[in-house]
C-alpha cells in the first residue's frame, strides 16, 4: 500500500510546489499596482456575491467598487484585467451549477425528512417518497409520494424514445450519408426549426387538437393520454437526436467509408457495416441526450395531461395520462406552500440528478468515441 501511495504523494507535492513557484513568479513579475487592482476587484466581487446571498441591500456598494476597479484596470492594465475577468466569468459558470444544486437540494430537504421511514430501526430520510404510491396534499395523512410521477415520466420517456430514437437516427443517416446536397440544405434547417417551435405551441396544438381527437377516437373518459404526450415529446426530442447523431456519423473518417465502397459494397452496406458500428457510441449518446430532453420536457406534458397524481390501471395503460415530474411542478407551483412546495423541489431534484447523469454519461461515451476514431486515423 505504502509503496503505491508514496510516489503519488511526492508527485502531488511536486505539483503543488510547481504551482506555488509559478504563483510566486507571477506575483514578482506583475506590477504591484496591477496586482492591487486584481486583488481589490476580486475581494469586492466576493463581497458583492456574499451580500447578494444574504439578500443585503448594501450589495450594490461592493459591486460598484468591483465595476470601478475593473474599469480602471481595463484602462491601465488591460492584459491582466482581461485575464482576471475571463477567469471570473468561467468560475461563475461553475458557480451557477453549484448554486442550482445547493438551492434545490436545500429547498427539497424538509419534505425528504418528512417522508422518512424507519428500516431496521434506522430512520432513512426520503425513503417513503418511493415506497408508497399516494400523493395527497390536502387530506391527512398527507403524503408526497413521487412514484406516480416517476411512473408518468418513465411512460412518456419510453414512448418518446421509441419515436425519437429510430426516426432520429434514420434522419441523421439520411442527412449525413444519403441526401443529395440540395435536399440536405432543405431538410437540415427544417429539423432545426422543428427544435425551435416553442414547447407551449406544441402543447397548445396537442391540447386543442390531438387530445380531443384521441379521446374521441379511443372513446376515453376525459382527456390526456401518455401515448400522445409521448408522441409529441418524441417529436420535440427528435431534433436533438438528429443533430448529435449526425455529428457522430460525420466524424467517422471518410477513408473508412471509401475503403468499404472500394470493395464494391452498396452505400447501404457501408452504412450498416462500417459507418453505424463505428459511430455506434456517438449515436447512442445522441439517443441518450434525446432521452434527457424528453424527461425534462414540461409545457406540452403540463397542458396535455390530467394533472392528477395517480397511477393508471393497468400499469401499462397508455391511454390515461396523469402526471409527470415536470408537469407536477408546473401545475402545482401556484397553490403550493410549505411542505408541498418542498415536495415540488424533490421532483426537481430527481429531474436534475437524472438528467445530469444522462448528460455526463453521454459526454463520456462521446469522448470515448472521439478517442477511438482519433486513434484509428
Amino acid at each position: 500500500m505504502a509503496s503505491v501511495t508514496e510516489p503519488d504523494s511526492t508527485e502531488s507535492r511536486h505539483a503543488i510546489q510547481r504551482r506555488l513557484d509559478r504563483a510566486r513568479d507571477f506575483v514578482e513579475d506583475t506590477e504591484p499596482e496591477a496586482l492591487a487592482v486584481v486583488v481589490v476587484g476580486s475581494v469586492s466581487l466576493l463581497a458583492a456575491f456574499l451580500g447578494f446571498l444574504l439578500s443585503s441591500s448594501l450589495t450594490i456598494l461592493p459591486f460598484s467598487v468591483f465595476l470601478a476597479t475593473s474599469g480602471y484596470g481595463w484602462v491601465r492594465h488591460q492584459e491582466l484585467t482581461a485575464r482576471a475577468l475571463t477567469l471570473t466569468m468561467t468560475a461563475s459558470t461553475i458557480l451557477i451549477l453549484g448554486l442550482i444544486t445547493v438551492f434545490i437540494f436545500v429547498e427539497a430537504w424538509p419534505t425528504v425528512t418528512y417522508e422518512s421511514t424507519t428500516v431496521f430501526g434506522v430512520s432513512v430520510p426520503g425513503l417513503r417518497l418511493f415506497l408508497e404510491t399516494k400523493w395527497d396534499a390536502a387530506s391527512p395523512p398527507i403524503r408526497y409520494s413521487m412514484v406516480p410521477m416517476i411512473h408518468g415520466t418513465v411512460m412518456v420517456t419510453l414512448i418518446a424514445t421509441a419515436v425519437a430514437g429510430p426516426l432520429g437516427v434514420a434522419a441523421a443517416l439520411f442527412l449525413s450519408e444519403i441526401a443529395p446536397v440540395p435536399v440536405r440544405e432543405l431538410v437540415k434547417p427544417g429539423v432545426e426549426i422543428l427544435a425551435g417551435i416553442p414547447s407551449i405551441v406544441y402543447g397548445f396544438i396537442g391540447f386543442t387538437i390531438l387530445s380531443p381527437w384521441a379521446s374521441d377516437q379511443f372513446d376515453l373518459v376525459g382527456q390526456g393520454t401518455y401515448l400522445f404526450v409521448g408522441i409529441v415529446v418524441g417529436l420535440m426530442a427528435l431534433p436533438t437526436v438528429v443533430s448529435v447523431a449526425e455529428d457522430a456519423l460525420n466524424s467517422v473518417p471518410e477513408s473508412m467509408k471509401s475503403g468499404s465502397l472500394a470493395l464494391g459494397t452498396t452505400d447501404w452496406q457501408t452504412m450498416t457495416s462500417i459507418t453505424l458500428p463505428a459511430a455506434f457510441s456517438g449515436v447512442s449518446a445522441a439517443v441518450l441526450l434525446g432521452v434527457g430532453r424528453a424527461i425534462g420536457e414540461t409545457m406540452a406534458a403540463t397542458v396535455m395531461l390530467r394533472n392528477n397524481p395517480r397511477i393508471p390501471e393497468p400499469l401499462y395503460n397508455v391511454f390515461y395520462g396523469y402526471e409527470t415530474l415536470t408537469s407536477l411542478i408546473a401545475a402545482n407551483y401556484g397553490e403550493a406552500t410549505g411542505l408541498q412546495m418542498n415536495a415540488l423541489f424533490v421532483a426537481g431534484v430527481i429531474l436534475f440528478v437524472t438528467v445530469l447523469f444522462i448528460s455526463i454519461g453521454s459526454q463520456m461515451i462521446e469522448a470515448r468515441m472521439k478517442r477511438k476514431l482519433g486513434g484509428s486515423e
Partner: protein
Amino acid sequence: MASATENSVVRDRTTGTKTVAAVAVGLSAVLFALGLAALFGVVSITDPIAGLPSVSINGLLLTALGVAVVSFGVGSRLEFVETEPLPSAGLIAGLAFSGIWFAVAGLVGSQMLGLGTAGSLALALVTGAGVFAVTVVPREDVGSTLPAGALSLLAGVAFLTGLVGPGWAWEPAGLRATFSAGLTIPAVTLFTSLLTGWSSAKAYGGFGARGRHLGAYVLVYLNALSIVAVLFVLVAFTVLKGLPGLINGVTFGSGVGPSNTINLFGLSYTIVWPVNWPFVMNGVALLNDVNGVLPAIVGTFWLVVGAVLFAVPLGVGAAVFLTEYAERGRFTQIVEIATNGLWSTPSIVFGLFGFAFLVPRFGGQKSLLSGMITLGFMLLPLVVITSREAMLAVPDEYRDASAALGVTKWETVRSVVIPAALPGVVTGIILGVGRIAGETAPILLTMAGGTFVPGSQTADVVGGFTFTTSPPFVANPELMQATAALPYQLYALISAGVGLSGNVGSAGQFKWATALVLLVVVLSFYAVGIVTRYYFRRKLHQ
C-alpha cells in the same frame, strides 16, 4: 465492362417482371396515402371511392398487393424471375416479422377465435416461431416477401369480408379505451403498406445487396419526408388558424396608428405609426374593438434583452478564458462537463432555482428581473459552448501570426481571435435567444404575468429608472414587478379553459393568434440565425 453490358442485357430481359415489383411499390404508396387520408379524417372509411366504400378499396388493394408480393417472392425462388438473393433475409428481419406476427396471432386468437390466455399465447408463440423460421431459413427472396405479403393478404381479406368492417370495435379488458374501425383500419393499412413497400422495393432491386439498399432507402427517404411534412403541417396549421385573429382590423395609411412618444434626456419625439395593427398594438380593454397582446410582446422583448445582457458577456468571457488562457486539463474538463450539464438541465429546474434563489432576493415577489436572470442562466451554457466551438475553429496560424508581430496575448485575442470567431458566436446567440424566447417553464415560477393584460401594463423599462437615497440607490419598479410574456400568456390562456369569451371577442381566435405571434417571434430568430450561419459559411468557403 463486359459484365456490365451483360448485366444490362439481363436487366432488359427482366423488365417485365420488374414492372410487377414497381407496381407493388406504387400500390403501397397509394395505400399509404389512403391510410393517411382516412387517419386525418379527409376520407371516412365508409365514404365511397369509385362506387365502393373505401374500406373495401383498401381491402382489395391490400389483397392484390399481398398476392403480388408473395408471387414475386415465390417466382424468384422458382427461378422464373432473375434475381440475386442472399442465402437468408437476416436475423433482424426475422425478429421484426416474428414480433409482428406474434402480436397479430395473439390478438386474433384471444379476440376473434375466443381462445383463452394460454391458448392464444400458444398460438402466438407457434406463429411467431413459424414466421421466424420462414423468414430466416429459406433464401432471402422468400424470407423477405412471404411474411409481409401474407400479412397484407390477411388484412385485405379481413377488410373485404367485413370481418373488420366499419362497425367493428375492440374494447380491451380493463383499459377503458376502444379501438374503433375508423382508427384501426387506416392504422393497419398504413403499417401494412410500409411493410409491403419495403418488401417490394427489395424485390425491385432484385434482392441481395442492391435490393436491401433500395428497401432501406425507401424507408429512410419516407422518414425524412414525413419529418419535413410534420413540420410544414404544424406551421401551416398554426398560421391558418392564427391569421384571422392576427390581421383583424389592420388598416394602413399615414396617421392611423397609435402614437408613441420617446423621452430621452429631456428631448421628446413623437412617432405616429403609418399602420394600425390592433392585435400587436393593443392590450386587452373593454372598449377595444380588437384586443391584442402588446404587453406580452414588449415583455418578451425585455426578457430577451435582459437575458442577453446577462449571459453574453459572461459566456463569451468564459469561452475566451477556456480557449485562450486555460491549459487543457482537469479544470477545462470540469467546466466542459458543467456547461454541458447546465445545457441539458430541464428548464423547469431553472424555474425552481430562480424561485428559490432570485425571487426572495428581488423583493420577494415574481418580477421581470428574476425572469430575465433565470433565462440568462439558461442561455449562458449555450453561449459558452457555441463561442468555444467558434474560437477553437479559428486556425492556430492566425494566433501565431499575430504573436509573431510581438503583441500581447490579449491583443491577439481581441483583434484576431474574437473577430474571426464572431460569426459563430453571433449565430449561437441568435439560436439560443430563439430558444429562450419561447420558454414558458422558467418564467412560470419566476415571473408569470396575466391572462388578459391591459395595454396600460406595458412594461416601460427605460423610463422606469429612478434614483433613491437609500441603498441600493437605483430603483426600477418596472423591473421589480411581473409583466406579461408571450409564452406565459399562451399557457395562461390554455389553462384558463372555457369561459374566456367574455373578455375577448373570440377566445379561440385570440389563442391561436397569440400562438402565431409567439411562433413568428421565435422562428424569426431561428431563420435569422440559420441564414447568418449559411452566409458566413459560404463566405468562409470562398
